């Protein structure tokens, strides 16, 4: 790899998002191993003041332009292309977040660089970068080779440690001014998260339910368990999409990030978009009929079995234990 690595820094409401530090840490490793510089791109007038937080980068390209705040993917790709044209960049890292979805595709279309989605790991191999992607809801991995280390990689949040991307150093800053056409997509307003009856981010026990619960009625069983454990019920996306529980109970990429003492994953497969929101729970207990469910790759305790059969028995035993 003979060219620089560029990380697209992400911020939300004036804060650098953790995914940025994850990518800087991962990028720094690759850059050091191949002796190339690590750059970051900070786009928009809301982001510009945050350059000092990206100390791990050798240089930060800053476009202090209001048109780049919450700009559509296409516009962000135009700005990145402008930076690529002026610096010798071979590898671009972009967060696999809802906010950044599509940027890599537009940049790929504009530059011809191949895009690798769902990246979980990256390593150097004889000048090439090999990216490991997680496919099919986490059931399959695939290794993709970027010859000469040239390409765009979208990184799953949670793939790399956040702390490794933080540094006290002061990066050098280079201002860029991007020519931007009037976009056909414009941001109007934020819609704040729905306030639910319970705040699942504050619970020490969460009973997480997934599609494996099969019906809305069965969710009641989980409610019963949550009540006697002094916790609350939360859910994966399909449960929320079916209207079985309110949006405020969703855990994952679009939903809440939770870190309870105990997280029970009942009939949840462990797709990366769910995992993202509960991976830092202190103790994860998974119950699933499928022994190959990805949730077992990360849980602390696993039960292969029918949750609908197990729940009533478990509820009785917990009651008995509590006396």
């Amino acid at each position, binding site marked *: 790899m003979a060219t620089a690595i560029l990380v697209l820094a992400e911020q939300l409401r004036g804060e650098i998002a953790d995914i940025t530090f994850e990518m800087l840490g991962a990028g720094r490793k690759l850059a050091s191993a191949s002796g190339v510089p690590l750059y970051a791109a900070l786009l928009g007038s809301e982001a510009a003041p945050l350059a000092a937080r990206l100390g791990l980068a050798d240089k930060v390209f800053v476009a202090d332009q209001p048109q780049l705040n919450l700009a559509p993917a296409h516009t962000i790709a135009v700005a990145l292309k402008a930076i690529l044209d002026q610096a010798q960049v071979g590898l671009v890292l972009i967060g696999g977040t809802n906010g950044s979805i599509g940027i890599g595709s*537009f940049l790929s279309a504009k530059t011809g660089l191949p895009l690798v989605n769902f990246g979980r790991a990256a390593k150097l191999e004889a000048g090439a970068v090999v990216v490991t992607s997680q496919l099919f809801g986490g059931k399959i991995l695939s290794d993709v080779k970027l010859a000469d280390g040239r390409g765009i990689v979208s990184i799953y949040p949670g793939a790399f440690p956040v702390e490794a991307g933080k540094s006290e150093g002061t990066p050098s800053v280079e201002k860029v001014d991007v020519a931007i056409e009037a976009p056909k997509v414009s941001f109007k307003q934020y819609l704040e998260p729905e306030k639910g009856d319970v705040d699942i981010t504050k619970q020490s026990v969460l009973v997480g339910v997934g599609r494996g619960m099969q019906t809305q009625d069965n969710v009641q069983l989980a409610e019963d368990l949550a009540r006697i454990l002094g916790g609350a019920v939360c859910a994966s996306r399909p449960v929320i999409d079916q209207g079985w529980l309110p949006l405020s109970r969703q855990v994952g990429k679009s939903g809440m990030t939770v870190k309870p003492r105990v997280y029970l994953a009942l009939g949840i497969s462990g797709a990366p978009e769910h995992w993202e929101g509960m991976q830092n729970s202190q103790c994860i207990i998974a119950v699933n009929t499928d022994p190959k469910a990805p949730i077992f790759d990360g849980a602390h305790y696993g039960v292969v079995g029918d949750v609908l059969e197990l729940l009533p028995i478990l509820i009785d035993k917990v009651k008995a234990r*509590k006396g």
Partner: protein
Amino acid sequence: MNLYVLLKMVPDTVEELNVATDGKSLDSEFLRFKLDDPDEHALEQALLLKEKHGGKVTVVALDAPEVDEVLFTALAKGADRAVKILVNQSGLGTVAAARVLADYFASASDKITSDTLVLPGSQAIDDLEGELAPSLAAALNLPFVGVVSGVTLAKEQAVVTKEFAGGLRGEFEVALPAVLGIQSAEKPPRYVPVAKVRAVMKSAKIETVDHTPPDRLIRLELDRMYKPEAAGRAQMLEGAPEGIADKLVEVLANNSVI
């Protein structure tokens, strides 16, 4: 409104997935296919928009196992036309798929009009080369918003809700025509009885469109595909349900929740 829903078949992950002997693809022998989750929602969103604003819903898919049934189901739910492009989806990367679909939208009968909204699902579980929606938007030079969970129409624009993280969402105005990656419809996808699908299979037809297969299926150099190694972190609790429940009670007690 001229509403297009793009449907993609993906392997059903409830089944066991195995890697083929080439080490670079899935073993197709025992694969079962289903419509990708977000695509179900894209169809529902299109049907809701049609009910509100009128217009026509066309569902479009590339050729894949079990796709006919999915197309007929879409017709039974209320889509007006179902189109199958005779290019095999297997092994086709996102970029090539977007190219094929862009060609389709360049044809005289399915040209993009000022009131066209193209609705792919937000993301598919095998989108190794990126999502279809932005690739297609790039190929068609149309505006794009992804992870959309709400669409309303007003004059020449759509007002869409896009999901961020932590339950935070944003409202965006998008000039039409546009491509929107749909994550969730405003209502759960409707159910349609099998009998109705059967009836539609008899009365309706799937239109087919010929297309020469792209000469390059995927732009990425795939080294290998494999199953994740069981991280071995999970301690598996085994036995009859009674015994497992006892062990779980111990685990809960050890973590001081009871």
